[in-house]
Structure formats: C-alpha cells, structure tokens
C-alpha cells in the first residue's frame, strides 16, 4: 500500500518537474538555448498545462504511472537539474559546420540583406558577404560582431575562429558558421569564450590561397541573451 502511495507521488513529481523545468528555463532566459524564440509562448502554455495536470493528479485519485515510463521521463528533468545549461558551442562545430561546397545556395535561401554599414553585420551577414562578393571589395571594411571562440590545432596562437550557430527551429537543426580572426590578444582566449570582434577585413594568404580573415582585437563579453542567429 505504502509503495503504491510513493509511486503515485513520484508520478506527480515527474509531471510537475517537467512543467517546472520549462518555467524555470523560461524565467532564467535559457529557453532560447534550445528553441527558436517564436515557440516561447507555446511552451509556457504547455508548462502551465503540465503543472495543472500535476495538480489534478494530486487532487484526484489518478493512478501511479508504470515505473519504466517514470524513469525515462526523469531523464529530461535530471538533465535540467544536473547538467549545466550550455548553448551549442565549440564542442559540436565539427559535426554541424556549414558544408563549404554547397553553402552558397543555403545562404541565399536565408535571404540576408546586407546594409552598407559593415559594422552592423552579424556573423551570418559576414558569411554571406564573404561567399557572395569579391574579397578585394570587402578589404578594409570595418567589423564588429559577436561569437564564440573556436580553435583548431592548425591555427597559429594569435588566430582563432569566431563562430555562431544559425537555428531555424530548434538546436537539432543548428548550423555553425565561423570566420577566421587574427588578433593581437588571440592567444588569451580559449574555446567557447564569447567575444566581440573589432577590426577590419584583411584577406590573408595562406599556402598560396586567399582566405577571408578579420584583423583586429577580441573583447571578452558575456554570452548574448540570444546565443543563436535566426535567419
């Protein structure tokens, strides 16, 4: 009998936990680490339904949920409690990087309108500009964009890749963009540190080919409130 009561309350706790997880992530501004902001209100509504369902289960004689289902549904709650919430970052760039051969059409589909003021360009707009125009035309254009630091073993100490993900619906479809930055203080930064790039566009010659690159400095910043770019 006691065991049944315990299992019933565990069921209620997991249902409540799922709703509370969403509310908590919403309140701490972390929901946008996972989904496009246009779904925020839908999720808050869902969380309220789940919390009401938990309340209803507590007040009525709703039966206990089978244990294996409870165990599985504890997983997302446990993730929320125990695993530090992190946006997609340097850890997944290798798996989610934009495919170089076919990216032109993809960027065209994201319909980015480039303004004249290159200082207002995000990394998405820079990527579009680099892919679509002659690098010589872009030379000496001023850059001021944000992203996370991503290092690869082949880069010199003062050069880093500054990356950012483009998300269409949720993190499952995130695509990583990145641009090479040569910075006097580049060696001070490690993977996943958020930075603001300040400098000018100066294509570099590496192994005989011209590579797009920003030359300037990096300024450490906090993670922006929306870590992804939404096309």
């Amino acid at each position, binding site marked *: 009998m006691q065991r049944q009561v315990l299992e019933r309350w565990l*069921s209620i706790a*997991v249902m409540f936990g*799922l709703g509370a997880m*969403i509310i908590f992530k919403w309140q701490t501004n972390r*929901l946008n*680490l*996972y*989904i496009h902001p246009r*779904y925020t209100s*839908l*999720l808050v*509504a*869902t969380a309220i339904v789940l919390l009401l*369902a938990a309340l*209803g*289960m507590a007040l*009525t*004689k*709703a*039966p206990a*949920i*089978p244990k294996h*289902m*409870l*165990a*599985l*549904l504890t*997983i*997302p709650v446990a*993730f*929320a409690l*125990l*695993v*530090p*919430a*992190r*946006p*997609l*970052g340097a*850890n*997944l760039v*290798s*798996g989610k*990087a934009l*495919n170089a*051969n*076919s990216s032109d*059409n*993809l*960027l*065209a*589909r994201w319909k980015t309108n480039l303004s004249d003021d290159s200082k207002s360009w995000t990394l998405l707009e820079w990527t579009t500009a680099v892919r679509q125009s002659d690098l010589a035309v872009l030379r000496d254009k001023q850059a001021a964009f944000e992203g996370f630091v991503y290092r690869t073993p082949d880069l010199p100490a003062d050069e880093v890749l500054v990356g950012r993900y483009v998300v*269409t*619906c*949720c*993190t*499952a*479809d*995130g695509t990583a963009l990145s641009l090479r930055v040569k910075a006097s203080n580049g060696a001070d930064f490690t993977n996943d540190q958020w930075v603001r790039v300040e400098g000018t566009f100066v294509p570099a010659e590496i192994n005989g080919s011209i590579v797009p690159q920003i030359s300037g400095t990096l300024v450490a910043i906090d993670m922006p409130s929306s870590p992804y770019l939404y*096309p």
Partner: protein
Amino acid sequence: MAVVSVNAQSKTQRKWLLFFAPLIGIIGLWLASGWLVPSNLAPLTNKLQGLVTTFQGIFIEALPFLSAGVIVSVLIGEFVKPQHLASFVPQNAFGASIFGSLLGLLFPVCECGAIPTSRRLLRKGAPAPMGIAFALAAPVVNPIVLISTSIAFGDVRWALARVGFTIVIALTIGLIIGAGIKRESILTPLSLTADDHDHSHCDHDHGACDHTHDQSKGRLAGLIAHGSTEFFEMAQYLVIGSLLAATMQTFIPQSALLTLNDSSIGFFAPLVGIVVLMLVAVLLSVCSTVDAFLALSFLGLFHPGAVMAFLVFGPMIDIKSTLMLTSTFRRSAVVAMVVLAALFAIIAGLISYVVLV
C-alpha cells in the same frame, strides 16, 4: 519448447537491460555534469553537454505538440462513442482509408499527437485501414502544416503537393496493410481493447443526474487519469527517440551525409539526394509542424525532389514516431509501414524531381 527458450532469452535480455541502462545513464549524467570529472575526459564532457542541448531542443520543441495530441485523444475518448464512429465512418476498406487520411484536417496534430489519437480511434472501433492512414497522414494533412509549409516556401503549390502525396501514400499503405486482414494480426493488444465504457450514467432512472457536482468531478478525475497515463506512455518514446537522434547528431557529422550528396553524379544523383534527405529526416526527428522551415534551408543543397521526399517521409517515419507506432501496431505491421512509406516517398521524390526541376 522453442517458445519457452525465447521467453527465457528475452527475460535475461530484459534483466541485463534493466541493470545496464541505469548504470550507463548514471555514468553519462556524471560525465555530462562535469562535476569532479578528470581533465582528460573533458572533451567527452563537452560532447555530452552538446548532446544534452540537442536532446532538450528536440524534446522541448515536441512537448507542446505531444500534449495537444494527448488532449485531443482524451477528448475523443470522452465524447466520441463507438456508435457515432460506426455511423459516419465508411466500413469498406477504401472509404475508411480515405476517411482516415483526411481526418487530420479536423485534428491539428503532429506525429506525436497523431499516434495516440489513432490508437484511441481504433479502440473506439475504427477500421484498421483508417487507423493506419490517419497515423501516417495526419501529421501533414492538417491546417497548421498546410499554413506553415505555404509560408515557409512562399508558394502554396509546395504545400498542396506535400499534402497530395501524403494522402495518396497514407491511404495506399492503409489499404495494403489494413484491408482484408484480422485486426489481431496488426494491432497491439492494448489498441484492440475496446474503449466503449459509457461515462454518462444518466440513462438509468435512478436519479443519478441530481448529483451533477459529484459526477462532473468524477468525470474530470477520469480525464486526468487517462490523460496523464497516455502522456507518459507517448512521452517515453519521445525521450528515447530524442536521445537516439541527439546521440547520432553529436557523433555522426551531418556533413558526412551532405558530402555523400555532393559527390554523387550521373544518373543516380537524384536518387542519392532523395535517400540522403530521407535519412536526414529520420535522424533529425523534428516535429512536422515546424519542419517546413528546416526543409527550406535544404533547398539550396538538394534538388526539389529530395526536399519533397523529406517533407513527405519525415512526418510519417522518424525515430520517435516509429517507436510510438509500436505502441499501437504490432512490430511486423510497423516494419511494413516503414518499408512501404520509404518506397513511396522515393517515388514521390522522383516525380517531384521531374516536375519541379
């Protein structure tokens, strides 16, 4: 004898699973939490945290749609009686299939919602071809998806073609698998259990209707009990599916698939593109109500036929929906659905390739 040994084998397998699954889970959680993890395992911690972010993305995004599906299913359970269903559902297989493939227009649910609804309808006595056609078609044949596809592509023809292909495929599969076969051989025991209990006790002349307050309370309690059980039952598949999809995404680079597409040439090129995007659809397991925006971003990489195959196949079959289908249909029927849906989606992709290029 053979039956006994199979049972014994599956029992030991279960025991091992029950022992190892939590163990792997706890080790994984510890590594992902980064708490007291040795520094030489830090890259793994990084990867696992990325996996968690991807998992939460899929899980959280699908949760509203799954909840909506469960609510629709519970409301059908409460308010639709088998005799209602029998009176307006065509009883011949062809009519039932068409009815099932169009019913989604009334119930705006995605794949997470369509499967509980389909099971509920089957338990209410809906013909098997209708249940199959509904489960496969409803994720696409519904107002939300029609609108989101038209908006995403800025062209209503894409939405119409997507819905058209889906209806034809779903009703064909409904007929092939569901027609002229005993319900027992394709449905799971639970979806065979008739759901025909009558909640209104007012038919009896015992003055029971005077206690309207008590009765409505009991009715609400019933709704909550049914709803919560069904929510957990379907959500468990969502958890497993999201975990598998997130694991694959973390450890198999998407670029590997895309490279395959880039390198294919000649006569088979359209076919390779179609198959690759269908695999991507299974791997991503994104909800059908939002996948149009995602499909759009593939239009630059792949020919329109492949994108159409993605739009048609993804909502019918992906990791989480295949798992959910096993709650309603027997495994052999699910395998047949997956194979047939894949075949027909390839054909739909090839037709679109010829027409839309």
